[in-house]
């Protein structure tokens, strides 16, 4: 794989949250193939164990770590455990996210608002804070939030809590990038558009995905491997001058005049 040739992550340790679903396994595997040792976390022990097993079957060095990311004490403990196990933390890929109901703003409940905020904003902060404390000591770090292109637009599928919290996450990305730039730490967000993850392919079928692809300038869905390659590059030493950025990887869907940033809404 080209990524292996270009991005050398050997000797590095990466923590990937939300690793069990969607793009998670591909990202974890790509980082492992580039040489990193991988700590994975997902919201249940089962999901975490399943992705660890998949990674090990593929010959990757991976271990699972449990924590509720919305609890700051558990996040501190998680990062401590990773450092205890591997001796360091170089890369944080924060892919855990909460979706919204897609209800109209005036019908969104307190519970929805708070629970989406807890994962998409508070957990991102707790993780970043704990990671920075470690990364500073070694004067190297890569924090990568896997967000969503709808962060820059609107979402019929996910609604107000999701869009507001994803935009907020970009604020955190920008702010933290300035604070830590002098310490060799970069902070970026990756904004995938429509990506054909296995679960989406299964849920929607090839025909729907083909129709959807017609609304995208690239005329196809992205692949998990393409997103993982971008994450791996941002994690590499070569990407040390990219920071505070939110990088779309969406086949240009977000820049079409009048285009839908959330094409999947057509099928909601």
């Amino acid at each position, binding site marked *: 794989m080209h990524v292996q040739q270009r991005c050398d992550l050997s000797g590095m340790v990466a923590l990937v949250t939300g690793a069990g679903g969607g793009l998670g396994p591909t990202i974890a595997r790509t980082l492992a193939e580039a040489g990193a040792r991988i700590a994975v976390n997902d919201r249940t022990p089962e999901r975490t164990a399943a992705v660890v097993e998949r990674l090990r079957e593929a010959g990757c060095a991976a271990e699972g770590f449990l924590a509720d990311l919305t609890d*700051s004490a558990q996040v501190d403990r998680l990062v401590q455990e990773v450092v205890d196990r591997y001796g360091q933390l170089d890369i944080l890929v924060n892919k855990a996210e909460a979706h919204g109901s897609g209800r*109209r*703003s*005036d019908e*969104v409940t*307190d519970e929805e*608002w*708070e629970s989406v*905020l807890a994962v998409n*904003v*508070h957990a991102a*902060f*707790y993780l*970043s*804070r704990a990671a*920075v*404390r470690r990364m*500073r000591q070694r004067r190297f770090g890569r924090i990568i939030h896997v967000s969503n292109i709808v*962060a820059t*637009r*609107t*979402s*019929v599928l996910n*609604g*107000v*809590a999701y*869009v*507001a*919290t*994803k*935009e*907020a*996450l*970009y*604020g*955190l990305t*920008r*702010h*933290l990038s*300035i*604070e*830590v730039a002098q310490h060799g730490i970069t902070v970026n967000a990756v904004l995938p558009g429509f990506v054909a993850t296995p679960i989406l392919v299964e849920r929607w079928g090839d025909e729907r995905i083909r129709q959807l692809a017609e609304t995208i300038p690239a005329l196809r869905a992205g692949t998990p491997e393409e997103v993982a390659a971008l994450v791996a590059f941002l994690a590499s030493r070569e990407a040390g001058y990219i920071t505070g950025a939110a990088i779309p990887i969406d086949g240009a869907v977000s820049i079409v005049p*009048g285009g839908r940033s959330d094409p999947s809404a057509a099928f909601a």
Partner: protein
Amino acid sequence: MADERWLDGLVALVTGARRGELGGGGAGIARALASHGAQVVVNDVTEELVAATVGQIQQRGGIAWGIAGDVSAPQDAQRMVDATVEHFGRIDILVNNAALGGLVPAVEHLPDEVWQRQVAIDLSGPFFMSRAALRHMVPRRFGRIVNIGSLAGVRTGFVSGAPYTTAKSGLIGLTRQMALEFAPTGSPSTCSCPPESATRRSCDGARIFSRDETIRSDRSIPKVSLASWSRSSAGGIPDCSPEQRSR
């Protein structure tokens, strides 16, 4: 001048509008809205803070009423909006101005409580207030929601920390999504400061808004603040004309 009173008959709720002349941007916004004819509900965290702004507006012949409450508490937000409707019979304009900023430690030293409180007031507060207001605006098919943003929401804050930048960024997403949901014909055209003008507005704004003279000499401020989103492009270019008030 007749033109001066282009908000006649409309009811506006302004959050974080304390201390009259000694206050910040919110008090200036409340005075400006009242001077253009709106009946204004002044909110801040305590009765005393609110009373100063109410008194000042009334002294100048404006109509104002005060309500203390915490925008970051969902029940409080609903209570304040309901009380506004009870008192004046309606709510047409909501200005989400209340916010908490200021210098905070760097992220690695930032305590949970500081983080959570600023995010709650600066991001959840406008959501709770808007949701409560929309419940009255939607059935009447008219409403204007103005979120006071910040340069921090577009870039980063100079004298503020991670929670402020994060929350003010989220506020832009909140604004955009609500604009999409309520802009189409058949729903009230909820409107908001476009992020960029909100930014300029609040940078000079805290100064400008606190002086009615400036408001008078620069009509573009209330106009832009009360901008309504164009119907054609959700999240697109706002239509800033005051005629948008026509129902």
